[in-house]
């Protein structure tokens, strides 16, 4: 089942939430809608589910225009962020709700509910009312309800938002397999970039009433469309430094603490323009003083995360830089040190607009394709 949105606009009174949003999701694909709260992710999901109607634009499911099609006729499974369980029904009846609508026999219903409940490890609480369930169990019940009728389209609205960290971690591991087994087209809303990276075949980043970038997790991480997206993706956050590229000794360079950092030749058109240089923590490494292009820094603090160690360092002008290295590898813990930049992974943004400057060769290649 494919989902296609064409030029969707939606406003509540004078408050525009979505403006000219177009999107298409392929059969079996998991698309993550990622963005800060208020970006319109939930509204977009509800438009697809049919509980609200767009002001303009079209929604197609499997090529069929959904205008005027009631939510119950769209064959969609949806899990809500606030669970939205039916408080007067037990977990079994909650999960069975999509099956009763399809007039399944009692035996089939019982089998299906128990199967999906076992899958989500809630088969022991099927006869509890929602208020007797823990948050994690509620979340799983809501998920089970969305899955029970095996819908070919699944809309998951930040289902892990209201559960504790441990369960969120477990579910982040389990969900991809679960979604794969369902073989459904999934739209998954989240505000957690790790969840987005772990679950999405593609990620659509939403902000300012629309989709700002859409691409694979790697695309978004390595080539963010603008500084906002660069900041939202990645922990520790990307280091963003104001620079003005110039040409020195025939190379395009940016100056950090008077040290010339070589940039790709593709950034030549940006020479003399106000830019922002984005450096991922893993694009930086500690080096010895005599390495060419080594930038002198002062080590401020070091934070060991599980798999990596993150160092906060200050340049001579007091600009903060985050450097990460695999845990267990040696590195300076205080005092003066030197870092080097991996030129290929440095990202350049236009300072005025915040947009990423695409390296010239990529643009040319696109034109060739066209």
């Amino acid at each position, binding site marked *: 089942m494919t989902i296609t949105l064409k030029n969707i606009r939606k406003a509540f009174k004078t408050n525009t939430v979505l403006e000219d949003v177009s999107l298409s999701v392929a059969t079996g694909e998991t698309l993550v809608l990622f963005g800060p709260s208020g970006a319109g992710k939930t509204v977009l999901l509800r438009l697809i589910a049919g*509980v609200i109607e767009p002001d303009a634009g079209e929604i197609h499911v499997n090529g069929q225009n959904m205008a005027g099609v*009631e939510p119950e006729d769209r064959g*969609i499974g949806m899990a809500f962020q606030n669970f939205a369980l039916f408080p007067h029904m037990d977990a079994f009846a909650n999960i069975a709700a999509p099956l009763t609508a399809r007039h399944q026999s009692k035996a089939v219903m019982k089998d299906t509910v128990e199967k999906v409940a076992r899958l989500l490890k809630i088969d022991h609480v099927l006869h509890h009312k929602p208020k007797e369930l823990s948050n994690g169990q509620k979340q799983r019940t809501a998920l089970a309800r969305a899955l029970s009728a095996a819908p070919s389209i699944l809309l998951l609205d930040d289902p892990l938002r209201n559960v504790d960290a441990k369960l969120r971690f477990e579910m982040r591991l389990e969900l991809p397999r679960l979604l794969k087994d369902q073989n459904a087209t999934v739209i998954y809303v989240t505000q957690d970039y790790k969840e987005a990276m772990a679950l999405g075949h593609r990620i659509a980043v939403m902000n300012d009433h629309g989709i700002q970038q859409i691409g694979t997790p790697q695309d978004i991480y390595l080539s963010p469309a603008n500084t906002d997206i660069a900041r939202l993706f990645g922990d520790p956050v990307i280091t963003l430094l104001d620079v003005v590229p110039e040409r020195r000794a025939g190379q395009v360079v940016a100056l950090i603490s008077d040290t010339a950092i070589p940039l790709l030749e593709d950034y030549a058109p940006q020479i003399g323009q106000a830019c922002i240089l984005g450096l991922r923590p893993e694009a930086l490494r500690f080096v010895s003083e005599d390495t060419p292009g080594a930038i002198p820094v002062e080590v401020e603090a070091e934070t060991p995360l599980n798999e990596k160690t993150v160092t906060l360092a200050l340049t001579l002008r007091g600009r903060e830089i985050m450097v990460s290295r695999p845990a267990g590898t040696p590195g300076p813990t205080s005092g003066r040190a030197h870092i080097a930049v991996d030129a290929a992974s440095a990202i350049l943004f236009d300072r005025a607009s915040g947009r990423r400057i695409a390296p010239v060769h990529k643009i040319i290649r696109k034109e060739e394709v066209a």
Partner: protein
Amino acid sequence: METTSPVERLLRGIAITLVCLFFMFPIVWIVLMSFQTNETILRVPPSVIFAPTLENYTALITGKLETQAGTLDIDFMGNLWNSLFLSTASVAIGLILGVPAAYAFARLKFRGSEDIAFTLLSFRFAPPLLVLLPLTIYFQQLGLANTYGGLIWVYQLIVLPLILWIVRGYFEDIPADIEYAYRIAGHDFWSTFRRIALPLAGPGIAAAGLLSFIFAWNNFVFALVLASADKQPVTVGALAFVTASGIQYGQVAAGIVLSIAPTFALALYAQRYLVEGLSLGAVKG
């Protein structure tokens, strides 16, 4: 849990007793009166010591009122039946009309919905007599005067706004997502209304029904003007106890006891819903 000293508990007990006495005294006195004859009721000074008699109740139930001037026929049991029928039917119709309307006002924001809802509420502000005078003329021309149908219709002025506003608050308290979830699961609008909205607003609907039943039961002027003897509820029927040979206090008291008994029992049974319903529904609505 803080501990209370015995003195404090004692004082609190006394205070509660005083409050109970203050509020319960009229009811207790009326119950006592209902077992006395007019003579013992009217003696000075009054006393709680008397030979109890059931003659007031037998007079009411048999419909024969013995006075010094002779035997009067009264139809108290008929009045009681009228009250029961009018109130129940009014509340039933009020619920059938009011609950879906309350849902519409709570969920579907259509043009003028607030104005219509407020207009319906404003029926409660109007002095009933103001409405009654023109209504009497219309009812006589339409043939609705002195019919159960006409009375039940007019009773909607009392019952409908109350049900509408209490139940509306309850529907608004149900998160819309719960209903959306049921729709998306594949159920149509009506079954969502029946299986989700109605059960979740149940306590509010019960409270509204109960309260409007009491209001309808206690109504006096509508029935006084629009109904003649055979359709009168107890509130109006009680006037029959004012006879040529004086007021029959004993029978009045027995009549009161019989007429408050159903609402009293109903309120006792459902007071939990009543308090919940009013504090939740009406305040938030």
